[in-house]
């Protein structure tokens, strides 16, 4: 309770103002004291002579009635003498300590002379009463000598005292002038100190309010992560600051929750849209498959009849060719799974290669480089290699001379399965590649199920947040650039999120193009067939 009272705004204000007032009172008191003291000292420097002068005057006053009494024994004169004598004795200071200073000592001697004169006067009165004429006459003579000496000594002492007073006064004037100047300086400085102290106090009391105001501005600008406002030493302001800080933290937490909920909703909506697209695509693919399977039995029976006919006629090569063709059709038409074992994909590709070798026996080299141990170890989306090879054959080789080659490689990098289809053809123009990645769908929103676009679309569908799942490197120069300038698309490749291993580097080939597929094997295993 006492802590709260002491640290209340009112107590602090009272305390600080009291300090300033106290300083001003003390300084004013000092100025008053020093002024009064200087006045007292000024009086003291000129004091001392008055007492002796008064005693001299009293002695002269006393002498008349004494002389009158000694002349005619007047009782009135005697009573006057006694009264004046008593009065004069009261003024004298003969019991004071003996001073070392000679002027003071001689003043003391004067007091003793007055006292002796009064004693002699008493003796003279007694002798007058006793009719001792010679006695009081001699006594009066002695008194007159003393009176005369007192007068001379007083004149000498006055001169000495005046000289001393002059010295004292000169010193007094000099020192008092300095004291007054210093006092003026003191009062100016202490006034400045008081004003600055008030400023300091006002600043100190205003600081938490200013901090609150600044924080309110930041909060209104939406910055809730700023540091809390610091506490002051005033209870009321601390209370407001604490409430303000609590309010800021609560609002911050509330907004964070709202944002999190909105993100969750957004993700949920995205997921729903993706599912809807996937369902739409699946339906379209099923439609195409159905269209392609309109009469598969008729096609396979026809091909089998052709194979048997070729065997009968002894055309073994034709028979083998038709056998591969039948396998390829079977592979393409009967496959209903989205994700298939790598072996399955490679077997289909081998049949396709056989057909291509028959078609282009002179100017097309087809190389398949796939280690045996990978075939059963991984799964890939169905029909992703054949369209790429077909794309190279259809679009990559429009030159008449030289040998064309297509190389399909399958290899493993840490955490990924890499599949590359490279050719030494004319490459893919940059604008086409751009369009493939930016607009995989046509302007009407329909999927163009043709070659490379189909593969890119499907791979990015399965791995929407992995931009490196499919990349193209080509010698195809952008418009206006030098021929032969290579590029990698998309480039630069954003960093893959999460804890997955880094993607392998891909460099543009010297000629032709490379379509590079890098499948996250862990995530591929999670895709349902």
């Amino acid at each position: 309770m006492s802590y709260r009272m002491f640290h209340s705004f009112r107590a602090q204000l009272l305390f600080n103002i009291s300090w300033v007032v106290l300083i001003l009172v003390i300084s004013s008191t000092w100025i008053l004291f020093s002024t009064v003291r200087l006045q007292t000292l000024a009086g003291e420097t000129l004091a001392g002579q008055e007492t002796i002068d008064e005693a001299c005057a009293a002695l002269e006053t006393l002498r008349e009635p004494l002389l009158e009494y000694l002349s005619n024994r007047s009782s009135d004169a005697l009573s006057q003498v006694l009264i004046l004598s008593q009065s004069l004795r009261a003024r004298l200071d003969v019991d004071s300590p003996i001073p070392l200073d000679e002027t003071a000592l001689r003043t003391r001697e004067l007091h003793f002379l007055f006292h002796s004169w009064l004693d002699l006067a008493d003796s003279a009165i007694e002798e007058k009463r006793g009719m001792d004429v010679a006695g009081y006459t001699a006594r009066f003579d002695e008194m007159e000598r003393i009176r005369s000496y007192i007068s001379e000594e007083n004149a000498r002492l006055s001169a000495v005292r005046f000289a001393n007073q002059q010295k004292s006064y000169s010193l007094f004037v000099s020192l008092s002038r300095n004291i007054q100047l210093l006092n003026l300086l003191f009062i100016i400085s202490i006034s400045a100190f008081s004003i600055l102290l008030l400023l300091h106090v006002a600043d100190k009391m205003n600081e938490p309010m200013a901090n609150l105001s600044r924080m309110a501005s930041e909060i209104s600008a939406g910055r809730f992560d700023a540091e809390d406002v610091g506490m002051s030493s005033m209870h009321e302001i601390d209370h407001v600051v604490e409430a303000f800080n609590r309010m800021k933290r609560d609002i911050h937490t509330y907004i964070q929750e709202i944002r999190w909920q909105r993100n969750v909703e957004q993700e949920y909506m995205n997921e729903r849209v993706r599912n809807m697209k996937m369902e739409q695509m699946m339906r379209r693919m099923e439609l195409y498959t159905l269209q392609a399977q309109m009469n598969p039995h008729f096609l396979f029976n026809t091909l089998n009849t052709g194979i048997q006919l070729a065997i009968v006629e002894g055309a073994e090569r034709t028979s083998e060719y038709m056998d591969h063709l039948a396998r390829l059709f079977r592979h393409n038409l009967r496959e209903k799974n989205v994700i298939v074992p790598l072996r399955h994909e490679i077997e289909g590709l081998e049949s396709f290669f056989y057909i291509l070798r028959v078609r282009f026996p002179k100017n097309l080299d087809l190389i398949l480089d796939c280690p045996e141990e990978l075939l059963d170890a991984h799964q890939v989306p169905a029909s992703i290699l054949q369209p790429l090879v077909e794309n190279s054959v259809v679009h990559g080789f429009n030159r008449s001379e030289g040998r064309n080659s297509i190389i399909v490689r399958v290899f493993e990098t840490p955490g990924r399965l890499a599949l590359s289809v490279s050719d030494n053809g004319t490459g893919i123009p940059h604008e086409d590649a751009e369009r493939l990645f930016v607009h995989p769908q046509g302007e009407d929103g329909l999927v163009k199920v043709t070659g490379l676009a189909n593969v890119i679309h499907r791979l990015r569908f399965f791995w929407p947040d992995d931009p490196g799942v499919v990349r193209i490197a080509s010698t195809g120069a952008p418009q206006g650039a030098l021929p032969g300038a290579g590029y990698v698309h998309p480039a630069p490749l954003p960093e893959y999120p999460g804890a997955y291993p880094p993607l392998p580097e891909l460099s543009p080939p010297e000629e032709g193009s490379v379509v590079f597929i890098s499948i996250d094997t862990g995530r591929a295993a999670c895709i349902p067939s």
Partner: protein
Amino acid sequence: MKKIVRAGLFLSAVCSLAPFAVSVFLLARLTGEIAGRRGIEPPAALHLALYVPRTRSSSLDALVSAARETAAAEGAALSVHSLDSDGSTLGMAQWTGAQGVIVHPDGGDRVILREMEALRKRGIPVVLVNHSIPSDLPWAFVGANNFDFGKKAGALVSREVRSDPRIVVVYSDKNPAVYSERELVEMGLSTVFSGRSAQLLPSVKTAVNPRDAENVVHELLRQRPEVNVLVFTDADDTIAGCQALIDLNLVGVVQVIGYGDSPEIRDYIRKGVLNGSLAVNPGPTGAQAVRSLIELARTGYTSSSVDTGIEILSRERTAK
């Protein structure tokens, strides 16, 4: 802004405290100075009074100064008064509350003796300095023995003048202690020259003027050319007399015994103008007088005579 206010606070605090402290110091000093001038000091145990001749000389000033210092050191207050011819000043001593009186007579022995007896009747102790007064009663005395002064002067003369010294003593109002006991001085001189062909010629006397001796010596040597020894009894007279001898070109012809121990006198001795000098140091005399009076006031007893001695400054000693 905060830093400026804080710096201003510090600066104004310093600027306030400094003049305040100096102002307090000056006021305390002023109070002390004025209090000191008004005699606010520890009180003295005794009130003593010193009565000295009205005519002041350097030796007398030195005596008074030494007496003041000794009184202050002994915790006694000392008032200094000048004697007058009728003794009225000394007569007031009994009424001033003084608890002891030191008298340095300047002649007028009877008047002084009367007042001293009045003081004794009132039980106030009295000490004489430099000059004793013939009296039936014993008075405490502090000072040089003037008979001894005469003897030492004679010894110096006999050492410097081998035959027929014709001596003139130059007394002075500036040193009444010697003048008032001139008989003792001359007796001392006579004692040294008894049985020898020396003549002690009539003495001369200078006034209080410090240059008076120059004229006196001029007149003396013109009127009495047989004089071949001068004995001075005052330091100012010694210096003025030497200057007269130099002017008259009689250095070495007239032998001079000086008085005092000032740098000029030592210089004259080294140059051979002076044959020697007799120095009575007044400081110890004043100090001893105060000590004797305090002893007398406190115990009622003290030495009846304290000889403060006479120092001979010869050429050999000055050369050292």
